[in-house]
């Protein structure tokens, strides 16, 4: 704990100086989206001030500069997740678009009537609905592997659901509602034994741990920039080159073509085949800066610091009478989802807000998870590397006080 440069990191985030309802902001809604360091904010601003033009277009100097920055960010992402080529880094709006892209291209080409897609019971709606839409279009069947009361995948049941009809396994790396980190290596090994491709929804995992797509041997990895200290509106679909090559384009337009006549169109090479239209250039530049920032701090250092924060918060939460933690997986990221006996999550949210504390109250876009635990909603404190034990103390004290008020 002492070696982690928490004060320096906090100073990098201007918003942490804000007052909310006259109290210092305690931002614990990082699983929804996290705050941005000044270097990221400045890099976007400076890019617009000094280097902005469209990419892959003109011969003029600015366009060349902008293209260098844009493709430079792709290079950084390749290194960050250890992809084997920049051709495997597709820029999209975010995790949701990445999953929809796979459903609409890989899915429509490879998944037919009676085939099965296997997910888990802890998925975010964005890893449920695109597959339901695909199933509706193709007549394929969505299979759901169950979880236990700790919020862990029941691996034996998952394994039993892998059949000759399974054409894709799509699972969350770290659950946004429960914090559970899935045994993705085991999941991938089980799927690979039957030659089934695996997509990992990495939206929550990517800001909290180091991810090596080659070591994992996953076929697709989807994540968003805005949950990893980068801007909104930008994310990445990683896909193995051979799979991406074989997939048809997602959207048609500029940049994704090599040659267009009214008779036919020849598509561009990877990764551009999947990047139709002018991309979110400045946000890609911002994402590149966020990668530099995270790399400098070190993902393993972040993971260790956040594990200590979660451990501290969990111990304190367990001392509060009438508080029930939802999601107690052995392998868990820095998310504390909970309910109180006598206070509804929405009231918890409003009460804590009056103390300057931002948490999420609701179903976290995971309604089936809420149904499983038989709660309408939960309150969720989700931590980032800029949070502190002192902030957790204020949170826990606030919870104790509001229980008294509602008592």
């Amino acid at each position: 704990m002492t070696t982690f440069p928490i004060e320096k990191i906090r100073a990098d985030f201007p918003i942490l100086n804000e007052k909310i309802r006259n109290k210092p902001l305690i931002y614990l809604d990082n699983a929804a989206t996290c705050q941005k360091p000044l270097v990221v904010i400045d890099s976007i601003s400076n890019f617009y001030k000094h280097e902005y033009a469209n990419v892959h277009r003109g011969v003029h100097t600015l366009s060349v500069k902008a293209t260098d920055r844009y493709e430079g960010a792709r290079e950084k992402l390749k290194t960050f997740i250890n992809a084997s080529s920049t051709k495997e880094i597709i820029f999209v709006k975010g995790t949701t678009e990445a999953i929809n892209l796979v459903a609409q291209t890989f899915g429509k080409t490879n998944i037919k009537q009676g085939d099965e897609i296997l997910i888990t019971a802890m998925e975010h709606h964005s890893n449920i609905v695109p597959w339901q839409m695909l199933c509706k279009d193709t007549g394929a069947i969505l299979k759901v592997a169950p979880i236990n009361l700790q919020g862990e995948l029941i691996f034996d049941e998952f394994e039993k659901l892998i059949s000759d009809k399974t054409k894709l396994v799509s699972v969350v790396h770290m659950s946004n509602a429960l914090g559970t980190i899935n045994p993705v290596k085991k999941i991938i090994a089980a799927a690979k034994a039957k030659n089934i491709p695996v997509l990992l929804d990495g939206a929550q995992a990517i800001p909290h741990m180091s991810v090596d797509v080659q070591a994992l041997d996953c076929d697709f990895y989807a994540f968003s920039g805005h949950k990893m200290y980068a801007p909104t509106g930008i994310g990445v679909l990683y896909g193995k080159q051979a799979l991406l090559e074989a997939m048809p384009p997602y959207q048609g337009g500029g940049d994704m073509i090599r040659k267009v006549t009214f008779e036919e169109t020849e598509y561009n090479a990877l990764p551009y085949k999947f990047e139709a239209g002018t991309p979110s250039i400045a946000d890609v530049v911002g994402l590149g800066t966020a990668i530099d920032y995270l790399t400098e701090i070190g993902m393993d250092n972040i993971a260790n610091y956040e594990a200590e924060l979660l451990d501290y918060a969990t111990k304190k939460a367990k001392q509060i009478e009438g508080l029930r933690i939802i999601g107690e997986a052995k392998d868990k990221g820095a998310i504390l989802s909970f309910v109180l006996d006598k206070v509804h999550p929405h009231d918890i949210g409003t009460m804590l807000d009056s103390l300057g504390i931002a948490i999420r109250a609701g179903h976290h876009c995971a309604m089936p998870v809420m149904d499983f635990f038989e709660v309408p909603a939960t309150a969720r404190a989700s931590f980032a590397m800029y949070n502190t034990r002192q902030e957790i103390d204020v949170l826990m004290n606030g919870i104790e006080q509001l229980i008294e008020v509602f008592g």
Partner: protein
Amino acid sequence: MFDDLRDLYQEVIFDHNRNPRNFRVMEDADRQVEGFNPLCGDRLTLFLKMDGDQIVDASFQGSGCAISTASVSLMTEIVKGKTEEQAEALFKQFHEMTTGKEENIDLEAIGKLAVLAGVREYPARVKCATLAWHTLDAALKNEESSISTE
């Protein structure tokens, strides 16, 4: 500690949250409508017993936050004995009080419901208070068996 919230969480609201009135299933209800707020998961079932166009009994079941529970509890108390027209007029007043212009609020007409006026300052909580009334509106219009705030 929560002084800033006194306008929103008045004692009457805590009271109705702890001990909701008319919290029961009505076996012989003439109207039964489910109200649902998908954003927060609040869910309630409203039961009405009618005599012509008069509401002779109202009750509810369900789970929700303190604001929504207090709102539906207070509503079931206040609409008993009202005609459909009077109840609809109250709904309009309530809607005005929670979302409209302050000068348009008729405090006399709104009566006890005024304890919920505090939600005006909390846009994220307005739907908690109005869910009950939208459900009543659907029940009176006899349109649908379930309504959603979204």
